[in-house]
Structure formats: structure tokens, C-alpha cells
């Protein structure tokens, strides 16, 4: 089961799927550190281009575009609310489009690397990868529970949408517009309780399996990095170094907010 869109039974064999999940996690961590450090549009653009190529190598163009549209929708909604707030309360600062370039580029990089990780890795490989990292107990358990929660959550949303259909309703724009409170209740009331119950169940399952009995975990399956992982890892490092060089050579102009 993939982290997202889990019931794709025959994913296309691309190089990104052959990468060790730890490499993809390291690339995501490197990207998040880099976007925090960089604040110059050209340096971030370099990472956006590279990460877009990385995400597109999934060969799931339609799905990636849908995710981009969802992110754009969220960005546009935020912008709308900022302007609304400024209109109601003029002392709140209005946001110009150019102010959003750097945050937009940062979001773009993160969306690309996270999509590549989520759409090319299955949950089990992430769990195995985390085990092999021998992380401290206090980091490993919450991380595993969080990741293990994802497929349950997706399944809950699917089942709730289904039961709503059985009751004679559909989550259409018409329902959301005409009876927003009912629509919210139909989806979120069971989702909230399921989420609480799932986390309880997972916690109990972990306890009953004796997690925490030993401070050290001995992984059953060992995982190894391959040449591809080394190559992709080095490329990622070089790209971040190049972006940093661009940043140092062309510092951010005073008009650009970070």
C-alpha cells in the first residue's frame, strides 16, 4: 500500500521507485533544510526546477497536476482571506503578489519532494526504513504511529463517504452550499471519532506487542543502499550547494520578503 492513493496495484516501474526509502526521506529532509536557509528567488527556482523533474519522474502526471492544483487552491484561499481581513481591518497589512514568490517557491519544492516520497513508497518500506535508522524510542514510536495512521485515515474517509451515500447524500458542491452544517457533520463527526479510536487501537496494538520492552530494536529485514541511492543523494547535495552558491552570489533584493 502506497502512502497516498494506496490501492494502485501495479505502479509503473520508474527509477524513483527503486530508490531506498531512506534516500527519499533524506532528500525530503535536505530540501526542507535548504528552503529554510534560502530566500533568494533564483536559488529557490533552481530547486523548484530540479524537484519538479524529480516529482515528474514518477510518471503520474495527472495525479501530480491534481496535487499542484490543490496546493494552488489552498494558496489562493489564504490570499483571499488575507485580502478580506485587510478590507475589514485596514491596519492588517495587504499582501502583494511579489511578496508571495519566495513562500510559493518554498512550498513548490516541498510539495515536489513529498509527492515523490508519498507516491513512490509503500508504508511498509517506510516502517522498515525507520527501523533500520535505529532512531531513539521516543522518536521512532510517534513516527511509526503517525505513518501507520495514514492508510487507516484514508480508509475511514472512504467508508464515511460511502455511508453518507447510503443515507442518500453526496458530498457535492450543492450539498456543501445548501446545507454546509449538515455536510460538515456528515463527514467530520464520524471522522473525528474514528481518528481518536484508530489512534487508541494502534497504541494498544503496539503495547500488546511489547513495544518498548527493549530500548533497542533489532530489524528483521536489513536494507542496503545501492549505487542509484548514492548517485541521487550526491546529485541532491550538489543541487543544494549550487542553490546556496546562487544565493551567495546574488543576495535577495531588499524588496523581497522572506
Amino acid at each position: 500500500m502506497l502512502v497516498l492513493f494506496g490501492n494502485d496495484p501495479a505502479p509503473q516501474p520508474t527509477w524513483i521507485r527503486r530508490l531506498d526509502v531512506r534516500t527519499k526521506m533524506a532528500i525530503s529532509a535536505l530540501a526542507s533544510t535548504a528552503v529554510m536557509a534560502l530566500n533568494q528567488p533564483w536559488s529557490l527556482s533552481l530547486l523548484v526546477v530540479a524537484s519538479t523533474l524529480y516529482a515528474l519522474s514518477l510518471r503520474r502526471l495527472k495525479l501530480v497536476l491534481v496535487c499542484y492544483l490543490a496546493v494552488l487552491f489552498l494558496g489562493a484561499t489564504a490570499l483571499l482571506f488575507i485580502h478580506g481581513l485587510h478590507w475589514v481591518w485596514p491596519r492588517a497589512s495587504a499582501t502583494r503578489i511579489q511578496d508571495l514568490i519566495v513562500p510559493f517557491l518554498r512550498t513548490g519544492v516541498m510539495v515536489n519532494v513529498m509527492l515523490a516520497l508519498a507516491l513512490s513508497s509503500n508504508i511498509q518500506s517506510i516502517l522498515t526504513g525507520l527501523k533500520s535508522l535505529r532512531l531513539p524510542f521516543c522518536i521512532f514510536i510517534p513516527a511509526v504511529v503517525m505513518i501507520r495512521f495514514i492508510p487507516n485515515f484514508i480508509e475511514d474517509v472512504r467508508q464515511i463517504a460511502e455511508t453518507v451515500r447510503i443515507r442518500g447524500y453526496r458530498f457535492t458542491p450543492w450539498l456543501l452550499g445548501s446545507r454546509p452544517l449538515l455536510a460538515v457533520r456528515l463527514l467530520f463527526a464520524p471522522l473525528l471519532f474514528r481518528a481518536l479510536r484508530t489512534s487508541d487501537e494502534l497504541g494498544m496494538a503496539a503495547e500488546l506487542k511489547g513495544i518498548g520492552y527493549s530500548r533497542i530494536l533489532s530489524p528483521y529485514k536489513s536494507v542496503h543502499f545501492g549505487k542509484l541511492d548514492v548517485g541521487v543523494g550526491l546529485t541532491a547535495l550538489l543541487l543544494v550547494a549550487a542553490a546556496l552558491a546562487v544565493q551567495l552570489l546574488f543576495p535577495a533584493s531588499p524588496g523581497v520578503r522572506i
Partner: protein
Amino acid sequence: MIALDHIHYAYPFQTCKALDDVCLRIRPGEAVLCTGRSGSGKSTLARLINGLCPHVFRGDLRGRVTVAGQDNLARRISEIAHDVGTLFQDPEHQFFALAVEDEMAFAHEWRNRTPAEIQRRIEEAADSLGVRPLFGSVLHALSEGEKQKVALASIMSLKPKVLVLDEPTANLDPEATMDLGRHILRFKKEGMAILVVDHRLYWLRDIVDRVIVMDRGRIALEGGFTMLSDHSLRAHYGLRLDSVSDPRPGLTESFLHDGFLQVEGLHFSYRRGRDLFNGASFQLPRGVTGIIGNNGAGKTTLARVLTGLNSKRAGKIRLDGKPVSPHELLRRSSLVLQNTDHQLHMKTVVAEMELSAARVSTRLRETLVAGYLRDLDLAHLVKRHPQSLSGGEKQRLAIACGLAKQPDVLVLDEPTSGLDGRNLQRIAAAIRMTADRGACVLLISHDLELIASVCDCALRVPIKTSPPTPI
């Protein structure tokens, strides 16, 4: 091996005790059945033995619980798990990994065992329960029976001294249930102390050494299995039958009756999956039809197609001789699935019912809702939040909502799993009443008692195509 001495236990924020002065001893190699009506304290007893109470659920505990000579209160739950293996009603609740082999290895990885030792242990347990061929499978794709076996194999690979089974047969077909019984007998011979908490009794006749009947948090009765033959005792404590003869072979085929729901040339498969129905033709009469088949045969999928929830690839469906679209089917049918948590949306029980009866005329709605609430013993809960109800109450509410829609086709998927004898009778009466109103009720159930009490005929899955139906 297991010793409970004068246990008093109350869950947090509860004034009423869940267990009240309970004493129990289970020796190595002994199997004990714990039964009783819903809410009598059976599951709490199991939770005290595996340490979930009070370590996870908290609450107020007085008395002493000892397992393998050690006080549970003095040990962490991960230490108790070394001695006690627990199997739940829904094994998915105890899976942490997503693939069979990883799941079986998971607990061992926390016990500092070498990969070679882990492999040896899980292969040995998998062989003894026949799940080795499933090693590469994804857990959620397995049938209920297979999931149960994987969960059991996973526990057995840890070689616990105590086995606690909480409603282990609620989702199993009768064949898988008998298979589980054989495994329990083997574990007994190996010296394990076993506690089985269950409403279904018949399958444990030759397996358990002793029976305890719980009532309002106390052990009301203790004795051999034969004491359950007393009808008045069973009625008093809301128990199910102690012996059940399999009614399935005696049920006539649905196509021998006048068809209300007629299906011709049904083709269905999940995306990129194999064909589940390949040109199936059959008809289902008004009244109650049992959809019968083993775990994983496609019964729930059939129900989903017949109610328009899943779209068929090809085929015709008619209701009372008239072709119907999937949308129309969904409008005229009710499908009550097993996932009650997902089906409850509103603030109060009565609002939940009214949402389901939204299409019934306002004049009739109030009477109808009140009637179903009374019939399913929910009338005293009308103001409660549906998600705050107990498992059995939620199950009855979901069924009441399905009935309140006044459907032409009502599909119930395992409506009595985990319910006691009294509630089984209530559900059976409600099903019968709906069928008598003229609805076509499809019952997907492994519950032999329910099948025996309500089914008029059967549709067996996989479907052997019936003689051409006169559509």
C-alpha cells in the same frame, strides 16, 4: 497461571463498577469460557489479564491480578505481553505492520532476537497454523478467517503462557470457527492457560473445561459446559444457544421463489482484479434470503452491487419487474455494514434516526422512529450522542437507521456479530417484521442462530447461475 483475587474495578469517570469482587483461577492447560450479556464485564476481565486495564484504560483497581506468578500492576504492559497473548474480535485492530511476514516479525524485533531466530519462530508458527503461503500478502487484502489465523500465528510465535481470546469468532464463518476450536485444543495440550470471552457458545462445547457466566460485573455462575443446556438459565442471563445445528443445507435456493429483485448476466470485478461475478443470473424473493458463503467469497461485494454502491461492469437489475439504475437502487435500499462507527453522524440518537427517515412523510416519521427505537431497546438512549454508545448499542442503532429508511431492499452485513442472545432475538424480530412488510431482506451472516431463526431461502456465493429467470 492466572489468578484474580477479589477484583474491584471501575473505569475512569464511572461511578458504577465494571467488576465487583471477582475471583478467578485458570491453571496451565485449562480453557475457560467467559460469557454473559453485553456490558456484564467480560471484556474488562480480559483487559485485566492482558494489562490494558488499568495500564492503558486507567481507572480504579482494587485486588490483585497475577499472571505467571507476577503482579500485573507491578509490571509494564510490554512485560505482561511476554506472558499473555491477546486475540481480538477484529484482528485488524491488533495489526501494526501491513504485510503478513512483517506483522509476525514485529513483536520479535522488540525482544532483541536475531533475524535468524525471528525467521525460525515465525515460520514454525506460520506452518502450524497454515499461513506460510500468505507471507507475501498484504494484511487488509486477506479474508477475515485468514486475518484471524495470521493474528493467532503472530501470537503463537511469541510462545506466550496465557492466551486471551476476546470474541474471536464474531467475524468467522462456521468452518473457520471450528478450525479455531481445533487450534485451541492443541494449545491446551501444550500447557497454555486460555480464557475465551464469547457470546457464541456452541463451538466451545468440547473445548472448554469450565464456564463462567458474568452478570453486572460479578461471576454469577461457574460450572461445566453442560449447565448451559438449561433454557431458563440461558434466558435469565441473555445467553445464546449451547448447541446449534447448521441450518444452511436445509435452506431452499432463492431462485425457486418468486423473484422481486432479479439479476441477469452480472459482471463485476474490482479495478485490475479478477472477475468476482462473471455473468451471474439469479433472483431474490421478498422475505429473508441468507447470502451464504465462506469468508472472502464476495458476499459483501455482491450486496454493494445489488444496492448500487458499486457499479457493475455489465448486467441487468430489476426490481419487481422494472429495470432500475444504480442511483435508483441506492435510493430504494438500505445497506447496514459492519463499520458502525462510520455510520453515525448526528448529535443524538433520535436525530440519527430522523436523518435516515428523512424521506418518510412527516406525519409517520415520529411514530416510525419511536417504534424502531422501542423494538431495538434504544428508547432510553434517545438523547445520547450515538458515538458514546457501547458497541452493541451502536450496532442496533445502525440497524434501526437502516430500517427507518423503509427500504424495498434491506441488506444487513453480520448484524449480530458480538451481540448477546437477547439482542440477537431483538434483531431477528426486527428483520422478520421488515420482511413481513414486503421488503426483500438480504442477510449476510455466519451466525447460525440468526440464519436458523429468520432465513426463508439462500443464495450461495460463489453463485452457480440459476436456471434462466423470467425477466
